[in-house]
């Protein structure tokens, strides 16, 4: 624990340090202390082992898949027909489906989440905050399966009355509920970012005669911009990995469509489809789920690492 560089030989004998430490010596062995320390470290190491295990298994199974299907075909192919003959494994339709969800969700979550955050940090009185914050927490705590049900039985029928061409399963309804789902995350992370901007900056703006709009959009939001961007990236990576709402409401049709009212399939919902057990658990159709999971992991990991970096630097600026 402590690094001590000693040169004992120079210690003077009279009144100086004796070479004995006498009463202060480490007489009590502390085996328990050491055992506990090791156990605690091992617990902390579990998370690292988890990450390594994820990388290891996904890589291993994905490589097995890529022996049958070339990586290039996987990443650039525009047809995903694992159960037909000939089976084609072009992941782009699934990526496209995921992008629809992310895009639609961001259309809802970014404006609404950011304005909510601005309201919470700049306008809301403490009492209002104390009501709104728990509501956002509850929204964030609702299981995704519930959002899926909501999309399927509430949002889709409404879409259908507005746009009669809407299919039962469609990208739009799933994207809308995923947007609602990540909204609390955007709101509360952006709220944190906005609140970490020192109030002296706000007061400076008000002292120059700025209105609340000018103070927040020209001083506070720019001041918190990197934090806001990182928050949004984090939330969108949640949308990428979102599974249940999408499997329930968006359908199971790999489809590179430009029409959000059609049924699509995302990367995650393909994994669900394969895992549900309706399909044989061997063959490339099944091992493809590891390749897709690897892709998912890569996308979310990169966006997480990047946004955590940004957030860390952002926090350092105002500390």
């Amino acid at each position, binding site marked *: 624990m*402590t690094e001590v560089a*000693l040169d004992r030989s120079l210690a003077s004998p009279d009144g100086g340090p004796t070479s*004995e430490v006498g009463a*202060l*010596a480490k*007489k*009590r062995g502390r085996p328990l202390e050491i055992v506990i320390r090791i156990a605690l470290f091992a617990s902390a190491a579990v998370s690292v082992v988890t990450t390594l295990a994820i990388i290891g298994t996904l890589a291993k199974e994905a490589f097995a898949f890529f022996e049958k299907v070339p990586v290039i075909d996987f990443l650039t192919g525009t047809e995903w027909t694992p159960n037909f003959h000939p089976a084609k494994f072009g992941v782009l339709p699934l990526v496209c489906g995921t992008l629809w969800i992310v895009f639609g969700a961001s259309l809802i979550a970014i404006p609404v989440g950011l304005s909510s955050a601005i309201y919470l940090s700049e306008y809301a009185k403490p009492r209002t905050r104390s009501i709104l914050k728990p509501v956002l927490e509850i929204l964030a705590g609702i299981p995704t399966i519930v959002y899926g049900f909501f999309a399927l039985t509430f949002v889709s029928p409404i879409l259908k009355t507005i746009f009669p061409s809407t299919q039962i399963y469609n990208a739009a309804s799933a994207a809308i509920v995923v947007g609602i789902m990540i909204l609390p995350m955007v709101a509360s992370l952006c709220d944190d970012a906005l609140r970490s901007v020192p109030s002296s900056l706000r007061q400076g703006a008000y002292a120059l005669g700025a209105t609340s709009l000018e103070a927040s959009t020209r001083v506070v939001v720019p001041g918190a911009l990197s934090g806001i961007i990182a928050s949004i990236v984090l939330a969108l990576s949640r949308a990428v990995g979102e599974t249940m709402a999408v499997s329930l409401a968006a359908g199971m049709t790999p489809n590179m469509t430009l029409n959000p009212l059609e049924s699509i399939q995302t990367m995650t919902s393909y994994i669900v489809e394969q895992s549900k057990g309706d399909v044989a658990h061997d063959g490339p159709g099944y091992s493809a789920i590891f390749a897709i999971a690897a892709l998912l992991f890569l996308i979310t990991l990169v966006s997480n690492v990047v946004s955590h970096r940004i957030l860390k630097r952002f926090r350092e600026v105002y500390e």
Partner: protein
Amino acid sequence: MVKLNVQLSKAGSAAPDAASSTQGAPAAGTLPDGDPRILEARNVTISYSGNPAVRGVSLEFPERKVTAIIGPSGCGKSTLLRSFNRMNDFVEGVGIDGQLLYRGIDIHDPRVDPMELRLKIGMVFQKPNPFPKSIYRNVAWGPKINRYDGNIKQLVEESLRKAALWDEVKDRLDDSALGLSGGQQQRLCIARALAMSPEVILMDEPCSALDPVSTSRIEDLIFELKKTFTIVIVTHNMQQAARVSDTTAFLELGKLIEVGETDQMFTKPREKRTEDYVSGRFG
């Protein structure tokens, strides 16, 4: 966690006398005669991530006396005090040069167990910091973890009595310590330290968070305690130093300006800066 560089080569050969040749050393070291030195600092420099807070201080602390360390805020007096029972181990980025000795033992010797050291050298902090537990358990916890084999109840009572708190709390030993007044909490913290029967008690501005009445009670207590214990007290209250201490050391900007008997320090200090400070001309 903490990197300590103890270089004996410099300090080892230095005279144990307080009047070392180091810059900023005390003008003279007229310590009371015949007192064995229980604590000693030899040319100690303590820095926080490279910035020295204590610079080349050499000081001795006689047994069963009260030594006050005074000086303006930020002069390094607390830093110096906390290094005597290695509480600075818990501060990130602290570097210590020179030697700190307890009964001639270098406390940074790798064979020294800081926990054993802290049993000998207790500490009372600036703000009362009782554990959020009952009054009884506050005092009893230390002896318990150190496997005290005597009668703990008796020890708790004794310690509380010595800390002049017993009469006020004897009927509510099981109440939370957080319910006590600030002054009572501080005396509880003193009792907690006494229960370990240390030889030295370090007090880091023990009255700075207290009202005048509580302060005077603690000062009375210090008077009692010095019969049995060696006390080192850091204070920026000059009257307090003058009232309770036998020896006073004056630190400024991390350097020891002067050390001497308290009476002398407050009546005819050798150094102009000491005079300025004790007469309230600055600081």
